[in-house]
């Protein structure tokens, strides 16, 4: 009995303290609440169908021994995860990511350089912007094939070098070092445009008066870069570094198409794809994919902790 009375008093309380505005008609209230969701139906449906449902499925598969096609699958608990972590050779492929990490460093510096130069008045400025951004627009598969011809014995690269009098006898994709470097170079070429555009956008959002004022103070281009541009684009710079690191860990299409992971160019994603589609271990591959996702989330989180997102305050 006591608690019913208590409950009654609780429900009554707000009514006593705050004056209740005349409630809107029920229908109007329902509509007001529904309206944002109606707008969200399409994007949410797409997001759920193509992002979250597959991930949930993938997580589910990672606890099974499913082979990808058989109607039979068995729940195996954490077996896939134990297997992953007891087979250290599965993580050795992360060494390959080192090449792509170095490449991203080069790529960021180059993109920053070009973005800075092209944000000032340069002749044929827009043409160069186009040239730099263009590779990013091409399909990755096409790039893979183009560069296969490029690196071929007697292919484009060799012919170009021969024009300069250097007759190389080098198999570009022949050794692990050379192959990984070549592939990472292709990645630089491909993704430079994206970084470049991000930087360019950020640089152009810096008010022009700052440059004028600094010039009056006798600053040269380097000073301007050091004290105006670099701090001004810091958030974009951190974002790019995060994207580059996660991109290096999950490098896939260029090595997959060009070498298929042969000659020591196998990355973690290629290995996962091979587990799933060559050895039909969809369960294990799902677990591997999930582990990669967690690793990337962890790295991103660490980076955010190390480089907190400061407010930009130039003026």
């Amino acid at each position, binding site marked *: 009995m006591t608690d019913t009375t208590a409950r009654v008093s609780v429900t009554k309380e707000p009514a006593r303290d705050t004056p209740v505005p005349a409630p809107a008609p029920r229908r109007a209230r329902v509509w007001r609440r529904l309206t944002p969701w109606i707008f969200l139906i399409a994007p949410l449906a797409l997001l759920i169908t193509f992002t979250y449902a597959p991930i949930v499925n993938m997580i589910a598969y990672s606890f099974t021994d499913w082979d990808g096609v058989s109607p039979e699958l068995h729940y195996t608990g954490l077996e896939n995860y134990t297997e992953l972590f007891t087979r250290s050779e599965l993580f050795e492929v992360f060494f390959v990511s080192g090449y792509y990490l170095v490449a991203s460093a080069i790529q960021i510096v180059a993109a920053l350089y070009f973005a800075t130069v092209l944000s000032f008045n340069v002749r044929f400025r827009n043409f160069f912007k186009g040239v730099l951004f263009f590779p990013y627009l091409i399909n990755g598969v096409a790039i893979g094939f183009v560069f296969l011809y490029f690196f071929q014995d007697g292919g484009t690269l060799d012919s170009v070098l021969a024009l300069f009098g250097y007759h190389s006898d080098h198999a570009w994709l022949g050794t692990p070092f050379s192959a990984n470097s070549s592939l990472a170079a292709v990645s630089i070429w491909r993704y430079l445009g994206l970084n470049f555009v991000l930087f360019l956008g950020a640089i152009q959002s810096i008010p022009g008066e700052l440059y004028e004022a600094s010039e009056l103070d006798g600053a040269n281009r380097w000073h301007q870069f050091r004290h105006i541009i670099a701090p001004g684009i810091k958030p974009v710079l951190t974002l790019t570094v995060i994207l580059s690191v996660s991109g290096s860990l999950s490098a896939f299409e260029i090595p997959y198409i060009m070498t298929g992971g*042969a000659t020591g160019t196998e990355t973690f994603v290629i290995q996962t794809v091979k587990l799933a589609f060559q050895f039909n271990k969809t369960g294990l591959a799902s677990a591997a994919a999930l582990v990669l996702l967690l690793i990337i989330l962890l790295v991103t989180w660490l980076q955010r902790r190390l480089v907190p997102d400061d407010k930009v305050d130039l003026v």
Partner: protein
Amino acid sequence: MNRRHILALAVGSAVLAAGCTGTGGTSKGADAKAPDDPAKVTGTIKVLTVRTDLVQDGTMDKYAAEFNKIYPKVKVKFEALTNYEAEVKIRMNTENYGDVLMIPGVIKKSDYPKFFASLGTVAERSKKYRFTDYTAVDGKVYGQTADGVMPGFVYNKRVWQEAGVTDWPTTPDEFVTALKAIKSKTDATPYYTNFAAGWTLTSWTFVNGTVHCDPQATTKIAEGNPWAEGSDLRVGDTLLYDIVHEGLVEKDPTTSNWEASKGQLAKGQIATQWLGTWAIIQFQDAAKKAGVNPDDIGFMPFPAQTDGKFCATVGPDYNQGINVHSEHKEAARAWLDWFTDKSGYADDNLAISPLKDAPMPTVLKPYEEQGVKLIELDDSKGAEVKAIDTESEVGINTPDYRQELVDLARGAKKGTLDDYLKSLGQKWTETQKNMGS
């Protein structure tokens, strides 16, 4: 969301300990019976195939037109898939994977009855057709190949003659010597690995059976170490290693180009490639396109002899099966039978007919002259070999293992052949033990 997804969710939440979805349990184990009266069979059937070239140039439609002369009420549609294995695998999670399709390698043999309609018993089909045990489960047959294939070296006769080699080498050593002669006496690349394409290297697994002329070679792999001293795969892999190690291959294997290699072999820029009978017609076509003599394309067996005779294995290409969910199983069966027996597909492709009483294709005339013994491998343990292979991740049917072998041989990877083969053998036998227990 189909039933498997819901099930997977259930499994994910650890509700179910073991599950079986059985897509369409009602039609499981159905038979596709051959129709009695061709005029009465009706329906539209869809045929999935890997032969994109034949669908595009209209050859398949010509076959369908011929077929319609006997079965006027059946309409045959074709769908060619470029990335066949991967695409069909995903489609087979639903019920819509065509009416007639090539059985993908990923399907476990024991699952055949769940995906394909039976074509009849082994006893009755093996009277007429070769290779029936490759698709047999519990005495019933679930697939039928339209052409048989035989592994071997495709070579340019002219180049080999220029190098002074007229007889087929009879041992791996003689073979390497012959390639050395080609290197020193001609401008041709003695052997082309086709490293980049990958699957081309995979065909070295088909050496199995030819070295010792043993129809039980597959069973031996299933029960023992495939790389034991003197075993078929070891002999084959050692030959490949030696060829690469001696520098008798293209300068940069990693950027090799399969399509281009056909024309180069026809023109005599490449002397030899290990492929299969199915490749001969493609190389002859390449020769015609390049304006050189297609008769220069020769075919020779693996350099090993048993009792003074060469030996070659004959096996099925892709087997065709009938979707167990098909609504027009009779029409599908009619097409499958007609395509196997009467279409002339095997002849058109210079391949070995799946019909037991059919003559050998003319390109294999030198084989008859040399008295090459043709054997069919017993595939009753084929499913076990496949299971051990995927479970151990050795991958005798994937490119990686031979790509690594080539890398070892040309010094791009550290290690020795012995150690490499030993580690493969260890992985294999350990998995064998684990699976047996």
